[in-house]
């Protein structure tokens, strides 16, 4: 019986530049259904954090409720974590981020968690441009509660027991573009080549980075007629671009053809290179992204890749003009600077 992952790893695997092995970014063995897309996303997160050489104690995982929200147990076992209430992860993330702006915040949610019970919280955290990565593991159903249609299920999509979904779907990508998100991407759990650089780019983005990742529920929504099954997604996927993420200090070695490529420099100096597969689209132009999304939808295509990025994004701390020092480290000395300072402030209002 194997509930424990053996400790042995491939002896040929290298450590990253801060001396960690990839296994240092792993978590407990997954208890999700075998073949669940969510596990692949966990794998991509592990790969991205390992490659980015993130210090595990420098990252906090936050989640709501659902199979998707359980995944933080299965990756980054040495990082901070908070498994919160259904649909309430954004509040926890906001509070944590305001208290300590120095950590990387990785929010993990599901389509039920974000598009149903948590839709309000989702909209508000987004419009505040909180500095975090927000991943929705989107399987079009409530996996944990046995596969009921969720708000992202496409109209007409057939559920496992055979009923057609009668309602319109909430497209979280469309919604976030509409609400002013500064980083919007869509991907597929079964495409790590695209997913890993997207996660890395999202972690480097200063502000709210939204990743809608289609992630088939093998148990309840992988049947013929479902628009979130492995087969359906693979047949209808249309990538906007091939993507490379080049961290700041790395030399740029790939050459890109003029006209079909675009590059976006991020605040920290790293670079996102997009080898565009569809012309007439500019990833820094919100209108063009929205147009493109609509067009793909009407053709029955699932548009993936980095869809929109605002290179000038300023996060919530910038908007609120908070101090550079994390608020949770401010002590009495800084918070109560004494009578003289109070006098000074009061004098300003006289």
């Amino acid at each position, binding site marked *: 019986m*194997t509930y*424990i992952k*053996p400790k*042995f790893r491939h*002896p*040929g695997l290298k450590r990253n530049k801060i001396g960690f092995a990839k296994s240092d970014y792993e978590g407990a063995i997954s208890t999700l259904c*075998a*073949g669940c897309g969510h*596990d692949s996303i966990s*794998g991509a997160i592990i790969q991205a954090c390992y490659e980015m050489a993130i210090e595990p104690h420098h990252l906090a995982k936050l989640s709501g409720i659902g199979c998707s929200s359980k995944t933080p147990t299965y990756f980054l076992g040495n990082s901070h974590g908070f498994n919160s209430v259904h649909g309430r992860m954004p509040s926890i993330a906001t509070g944590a981020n305001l208290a300590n702006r120095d950590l990387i915040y990785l929010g993990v949610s599901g389509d039920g968690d974000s598009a149903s019970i948590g839709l309000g919280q989702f909209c508000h955290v987004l419009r505040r441009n909180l500095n975090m990565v927000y991943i929705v593991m989107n399987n079009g159903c409530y996996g944990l509660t046995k596969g009921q249609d969720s708000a992202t299920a496409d109209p007409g999509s057939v559920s496992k027991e055979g009923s057609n979904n009668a309602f319109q779907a909430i497209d979280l990508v469309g919604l976030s573009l509409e609400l002013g998100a500064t980083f919007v991407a869509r991907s597929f759990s079964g495409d790590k080549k695209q997913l890993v650089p997207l996660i890395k780019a999202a972690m480097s983005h200063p502000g709210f980075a939204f990743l809608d990742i289609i992630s088939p529920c093998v148990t309840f929504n992988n049947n013929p007629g479902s628009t979130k099954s492995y087969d359906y997604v693979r047949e209808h996927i249309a990538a906007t671009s091939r993507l490379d993420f080049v961290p700041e200090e790395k030399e740029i070695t790939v050459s890109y053809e003029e006209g079909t490529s675009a590059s976006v420099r991020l605040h920290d100096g790293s670079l996102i290179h997009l080898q565009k597969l569809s012309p007439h689209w500019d990833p820094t132009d919100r209108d063009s992204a929205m147009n493109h999304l609509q067009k793909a939808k009407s053709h029955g295509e699932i548009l993936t890749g980095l869809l929109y990025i605002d290179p000038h994004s300023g996060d919530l701390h910038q908007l609120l003009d908070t101090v550079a020092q994390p608020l949770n480290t401010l002590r009495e000395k800084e918070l109560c600077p004494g009578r003289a300072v109070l006098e000074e402030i009061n004098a300003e209002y006289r």
Partner: protein
Amino acid sequence: MKPTNINNPEYFHKVVDCQYACPAHTPVPEYIRLIAAERYTEAYMVNWESNVFPGILGRTCDRPCEPACRRGRIEEEPVAICRLKRVAADNKGEVKSRMPQAPEKKNGKKIALIGGGPASLTVARDLAPLGYEIHLYDDWHKGGGMMRSQIPAFRLPESVLDEEVNYILEMGIHTHFNHYVSSMKEMLEKDYDAIFVGTGAPKGRDLILPGREEGAKNIHIGIEFLANVAFSHVDKIGKKVIILGGGNTAMDCCRTSRRLGGDEVTVVVRSPFEEMKASPWEIEDARAEDIPILNNMPPKEFVVENGRLKGVIFEKVRAEYDENGRRKLVPTGEPDVFIEADDVIIAIGQDNAFPWIERDLGIEFGKWDIPVLDKVSFQSTLPQVFFGGDAAFGPENIITAVAHGHQAAISIDLYCQGKDILDRPSPMTNLIHQKMGIHEWSYDSAVVDDLRYKVPHEVKSITLTNRKIEVELGFDPPTGFKEAQRCLNCDIQTVFTASTCIECDACVDICPTSCITFTENGEEEDLRTRLSAPAENKTQDLYVSEVLPTKRVMVKDEDVCLHCGLCAERCPTSAWDMQKFLYNVTKASKIL
């Protein structure tokens, strides 16, 4: 790459590294699991079927399986396969009733076996149940060959040897002991349908240096010395002893000397330590008995004064290697070294010798007096004469002699039936599904972290007093269990079915040792560089699937697979399955 043909039995056989490396291809993981289940008798019989001498080999085998063991590639040391074999032998119950016996009614064919070592005994065991009348000749008074005359009793107790030799001799073998066969011509004139030569490599090499003749009384040839000790013709040696040579014979000679009165026993090798032929564990055991080993010192002269050996003069050299890696020993210029000795033992190798085979019988000999043989059938250029063991291709070891014996027995059986002896029987293979439940397999799939357990030794002050006291005590059953659990069950194969794979990546994500990759196909060299982990061990195969719906292929590097079954547990469609692969070399008669 082309999709891997897993229907070729050799593909999965190669994955079971230990079994593949074993000359007799003993199903190692199969008996290790039986030991863990405390089914020692069954474990013994799995061994006996394949290697004929489990108790002997569990103490003395050269164990080519251990350097091959996959565990040695993921941590420091391989599974103690050899010593686990001994656990089966030490704890077994009654086995005789499980062994085939010779039928009352004979098949009318008569076979002569010349030499009573493991090769001949294996032929006897494989042929006796088929009704052959078997005559075994040996110049000693008991069977076992060098297992008796050479391997010291402190490594192999006589009772263990007798037991396993007798299982065979009691199958109605006609023994002709104390019978040196001095003419092959005479043997051919008798009414044997076939003759098997298993006479070993009985000639110890000599070292002709100044003083050799004058000091002859105290200069001994290693294998002659050991045989004389084994048969109690010699029971003491001088206080100061020098052993010349760095192989296993030298190790047995020095340790034996320590038990016969040698207080200052020194082993001197001409070349560097790294080139010593002795197994590392033999060297370790010799050192533990306070025997220094000096290297880079070729002997120059035996010093004899007034007819008495005084010692040996050695030159000091260092090894230099040319661009082809060829070694040359160059003098360092340091002064020669004189080491005092009352006795010197020369243990620098053995050779084949067939002075008793006349050269006009049609049996051809090639270089170094080695018979010309067919490598598969062991048949000589005289059709009814077969060779095996050390007599075939020069000195090897017991397990090789056994492997030869099995093949020679098949050849003799085919030959006696007038069949084509190159039409060899295929191995018996079997591949069976092992799933018992969602997280349950018929084997212990969990991988333990335990490091290799040490075999306990009897205390030195006791063992050095009597050459018959066994040094190694063997694992007790609880330790045997723990050591058995270290086995990775490499015979439980990961079997992939491309048509059911939905490419969800679950197996890639879970695999602890990054064995699995889904990628575009390519040539092997290129593929090896772009897998989840670099596949640098070229001796290990890549398992490649047919093309999948995404136009990629599944590539599994077999190198460090832990056979943990996690890929199969995480696979939603059972595209991965754990299946037990049993590979058994076919023998002349069915034993189990």
